């Protein structure tokens, strides 16, 4: 029941996402074709582009035909590169997916132990210090952190490469080495956010009755924490970390630019500067769809974590 409802709810969201993405080209002030080509373009080129973008047809017809193409996996042809946008994105996606996973792993490695420790030692100096550091972590601009890392690890000490991305299957070692700094630069902020969330969620669960029951059984603090508190506290954290994916994809735009990783985010930046609006449009659509599906996945994961969801009852019973 919950699963079905959740699946149905994605339909209006996807519909609205498609409308917003479609309107993107039409938000360009004036005539999009003129803006894209510039004033010097020949009338023939101008007419050809108008036709390619479908700008000569009524707007509703344009939308329907655009959605039709998108459903068939056609995001249009890049204006500058003259190759299908889908191919461009498919080329760039693996690096971004790898970065996303690496960043999350790094963030979890930091956030889980510190979050648990801060909650177990709440209102002690450990708690205050880690909470303060977390706020600091949330405040560091990731691109500046990236630069500082490059200066220290690459320019001054030559410990780690700051560029030279190669696909994983081509040279795993080189690939992983090149991923370390980017993952740390993006992941620090995410780990701070996760840690704060985990801490407050743990503190909420710690006061619940069943935790007292666990202690009354004779369980020690660690077993109570890991066996009873943590899993309950992770439920809201998992949901929110799904929402974090959107922020993360945005952050990667910058990280990829600094570390010259040929990823999805860098494609967007490049296309923005090349005024390749068709590629930008395709890329933002893909990013939104990615976010929608990750969140769908996370919500469905709920059913696995929380037995109450299977029965279709809310988490409140």
């Amino acid at each position, binding site marked *: 029941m919950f699963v079905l409802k959740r699946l149905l709810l994605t339909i209006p969201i996807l519909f609205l996402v498609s409308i917003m993405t479609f309107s993107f080209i039409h938000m360009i002030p004036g005539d999009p074709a003129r803006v894209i080509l510039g004033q010097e373009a020949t009338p023939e080129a101008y007419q050809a582009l108008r036709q390619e973008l479908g700008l000569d047809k009524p707007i509703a017809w344009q939308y329907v035909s655009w959605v039709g193409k998108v459903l068939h996996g056609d995001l249009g042809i890049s204006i500058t590169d003259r190759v299908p946008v889908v191919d461009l994105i498919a080329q760039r996606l693996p690096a971004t997916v790898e970065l996303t996973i690496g960043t999350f792993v790094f963030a979890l490695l930091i956030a889980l132990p510190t979050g648990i420790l801060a909650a177990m030692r709440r209102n002690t100096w450990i708690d205050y210090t880690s909470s303060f550091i977390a706020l600091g972590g949330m405040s560091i601009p990731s691109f500046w952190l990236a630069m*500082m890392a490059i200066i220290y690890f690459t320019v001054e000490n030559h410990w780690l490469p700051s560029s030279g991305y190669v696909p994983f299957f081509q040279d795993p070692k080189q690939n992983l080495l090149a991923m370390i700094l980017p993952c740390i630069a993006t992941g620090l902020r995410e780990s701070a956010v996760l840690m704060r969330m985990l801490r407050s969620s743990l503190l909420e669960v710690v006061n619940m009755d069943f935790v007292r029951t666990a202690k009354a059984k004779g369980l020690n603090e660690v077993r109570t924490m890991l066996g009873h508190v943590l899993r309950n506290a992770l439920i809201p954290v998992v949901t929110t970390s799904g929402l974090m994916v959107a922020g993360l994809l945005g952050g990667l735009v910058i990280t990829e630019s600094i570390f010259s990783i040929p990823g999805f985010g860098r494609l967007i930046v490049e296309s923005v500067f090349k005024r390749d609006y068709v590629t930008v449009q395709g890329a933002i659509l893909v990013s939104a769809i990615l976010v*929608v599906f990750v969140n769908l996945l996370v919500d469905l994961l709920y059913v696995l974590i929380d037995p109450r969801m299977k029965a279709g009852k809310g988490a409140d019973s």
Partner: protein
Amino acid sequence: MKSLKKFLRTGLGLIGALIILALIFVALFANQIAPYDPNAQNYDQILMPPNAEHIFGTDDLGRDIFSRVVFGSQVSIKAALISVGIAMIIGVPIGLFTGYYRGFWDEWVVMRIIDAMQAFPFLILALAISAVLGSGFGNAMLAIGIGFAPSFVRITRGQVLSLRNMEYVNAAKSVGVKDMRIIFRHILPNALGPIIIQATLAMATGILAEASLSYLGLGVQPPTASWGSMLNQAQSLMSVAPYATYYPGLAIFIVVLGFNLLGDGLQQFLDPRTRK
């Protein structure tokens, strides 16, 4: 011990407030504080490391980095105020009305639009908007403001939902007070706390977002000094003049930390659950 801990919790917020006050002060008196014209180029003094004359050094055009950092504070403070201002002007009224009237529009139009908007990664949305509108500070602000608006709709709406059935609201309704008056006189003032917290935290993100866009070259355009664009220019010189990257980034970090500390402090103060 108790009071020390209490101070640590709320005292951090105070430090945040002091940082913001310092930022305002620097921005207001930039002309007096900065020793040089931030845009004055001096080809005799290119890429000088920090020294007695230029305490933060000079950049590749011989401009004084300290003066540029000082003037950059003006951009940051404008970015915080304008982006969050735009977001609040759009978000708060929508949140108020949809939360108060509920129904079809709330459930199936506004909230779904919000869902869809939040599906776009914030920075990518801002990037795309400034791509179509053209780069520049104003467009960047508009892009960031629109990107923030959904979170203000959500927080305001959430507050209204919990307040709309309060006894004093029902009492006001029962004596025939008009909806508008109830919304603005009875509900809004009580919903303000969480909105202000959200605004403070959004200012932190707003400064980061402006710096990010400027860093990418889409926000503030040269020669205006902004911390983000300074980092953009310093990046290619990282191996010869690393110091040029230190101070603008440090400035962003401290100011964003200030807003985060203040927002966090306010939250501790206003949320009875965390106040113990």
